[in-house]
């Protein structure tokens, strides 16, 4: 510990996943997440783990479904178009209540789009994407260190609630190198114990001393009354997650803020630069950065909208997606302004300052 290494986000999250006990990884190549799959190809054999390049994103997520059903820590990664292909499988993971980690290194869309950083998959990640009533826990990192830390956090959350967890990153965080400090490797024994915590539901041999069992990994409930119970049970789990797992960062939030900005991931970093400059000129502007974008910090944002706050600004690398959640949080108390950047372009601090200055 205490050793910082300079690493790309794509590689750092892969290394951190291995250290958190992930020994199964299935994926299909796509830019800008290639370093992630390549890192796994290189490192998994060294820890006697499974790396498998699947024939498609669809196959990869279904391999994840199979491995997760065995109660093991398993991960896949892709970028936007590939995540769309995985959506079928993600819905099945949610329906069958399987813990798994999915990484989206977002790029510009729609369609094939481009390979530059974007945040256009916010709706897909937080509001559905796949079919049916389900939620993903979605974590949005804004530095390479946080990206890496989220690997172990997401496995813990997935195991705790038996739900799939997504890390919603982007091409900038994937490609960028920053210093990162890793946690220790989990030992083989610790990893084995992690698997055993799921023995009451997962597929495993009958030779664990507990006698015969018939566990089913399944999302099909043909009787509507049974399916209703299942979905209501999911709702209870989602409520529990909303109660316990909301995370956000406050940056220069105080009682005298005149403006409050809201941004997540990469966009939040650019906004920080812009408000640093404006605050140096005598303004008092704060930033709320949702770290979990589902569950969303509605209450936490609402709390910052006190009498002095005149306006809320939302900055995203899309046409305006998270802004809908911010408006729900603000609930009409003050105007909410939005600025987006699309096409895989990233706004500069200057552009953000200009937007805010127009309202001074």
């Amino acid at each position, binding site marked *: 510990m205490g050793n910082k290494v300079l690493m790309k986000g794509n590689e750092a999250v892969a290394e951190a996943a291995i250290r958190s006990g992930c020994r199964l990884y299935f994926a299909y190549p796509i830019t800008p997440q290639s370093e992630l799959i390549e890192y796994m190809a290189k490192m998994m054999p060294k820890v006697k783990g499974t790396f498998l390049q699947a024939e498609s994103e669809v196959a990869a997520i279904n391999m994840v479904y199979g491995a997760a059903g065995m109660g093991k820590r398993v991960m896949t990664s892709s970028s936007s178009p590939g995540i769309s292909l995985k959506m079928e499988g993600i819905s099945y993971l949610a329906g069958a209540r399987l813990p798994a980690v999915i990484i989206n290194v977002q790029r510009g869309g729609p369609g094939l789009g481009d390979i530059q950083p974007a945040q256009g998959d916010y709706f897909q990640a937080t509001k559905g994407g796949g079919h049916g009533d389900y939620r993903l826990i979605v974590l949005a990192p804004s530095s390479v260190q946080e990206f890496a830390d989220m690997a172990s956090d997401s496995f813990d959350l997935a195991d705790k609630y038996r739900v799939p967890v997504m890390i919603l990153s982007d091409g*900038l965080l994937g*490609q960028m190198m*920053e*210093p990162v400090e890793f946690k220790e490797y989990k030992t083989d024994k610790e990893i084995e114990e992690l698997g055993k915590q799921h023995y009451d539901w997962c597929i495993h041999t009958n030779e664990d001393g507990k006698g015969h069992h018939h566990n089913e990994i399944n999302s099909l409930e043909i009787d509507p009354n049974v399916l209703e119970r299942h979905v209501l049970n999911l709702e209870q789990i989602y409520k529990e997650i909303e109660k316990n797992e909301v995370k956000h960062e406050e940056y220069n939030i105080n009682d005298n803020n005149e403006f409050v900005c809201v941004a997540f991931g990469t966009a939040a970093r650019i906004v920080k630069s812009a408000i640093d400059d404006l605050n140096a000129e005598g303004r008092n502007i704060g930033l709320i950065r949702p770290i979990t974008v589902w569950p969303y910090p509605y209450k936490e944002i609402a709390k910052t909208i006190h009498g002095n706050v005149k306006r809320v600004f939302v900055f995203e690398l899309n046409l305006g997606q998270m802004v809908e959640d911010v408006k729900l949080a603000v609930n009409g108390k003050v105007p909410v302004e939005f600025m987006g950047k699309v096409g895989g372009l*990233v706004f500069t*601090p*200057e552009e953000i300052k200009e937007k805010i200055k127009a309202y001074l």
Partner: protein
Amino acid sequence: MKSEMIFSGFGGQGALAIGKFIAQSAMSEGKNVSWLPSYGPEMRGGTANVSVVVSDTEIASPVVSFPHIMVALNQPSLDKFGPSVKANGLIVVNEDLCPNVVKRDGVDYVVAPLNKISKEIGDDKVLNMIAIGIIIEKTNIIKYDTLADHLTSFLKDRNAELLALNLEAIKKGMELAR
């Protein structure tokens, strides 16, 4: 203190590596760093480039629009990034591949034939190390010793000859900048 830099050139000239060595050394000296490369088709267009930020405090935006320091290993890089370098900034120009250098007032220029010099040293590959030498001499972003230690630990057992060439190239760059 915060320094923002852009290093740019044709793919294969080692512009991204300039950034990596500077970021790595600055990190060893306890600084915050970020290294953000261009990627994709842009790499083939003549300006494979990387934005590097070195700072005493947390780095917010890793995107550099107005660099303090810019290295142009070829003409498209100089044309693209030269105009955005900050006043009192530093531009390092590879004269061999930049036939058209129009100097701006208030910006410090080091213009040198980096291809020619690297050939004289004995290996084309050390071209980018000359540029790093220039930056070491002109600024206090990183110390020569930090980079030398880093290169030594990396190359000593793998390629001692290349290590010697690299160190020579850095020193040559430092001389040029004096």
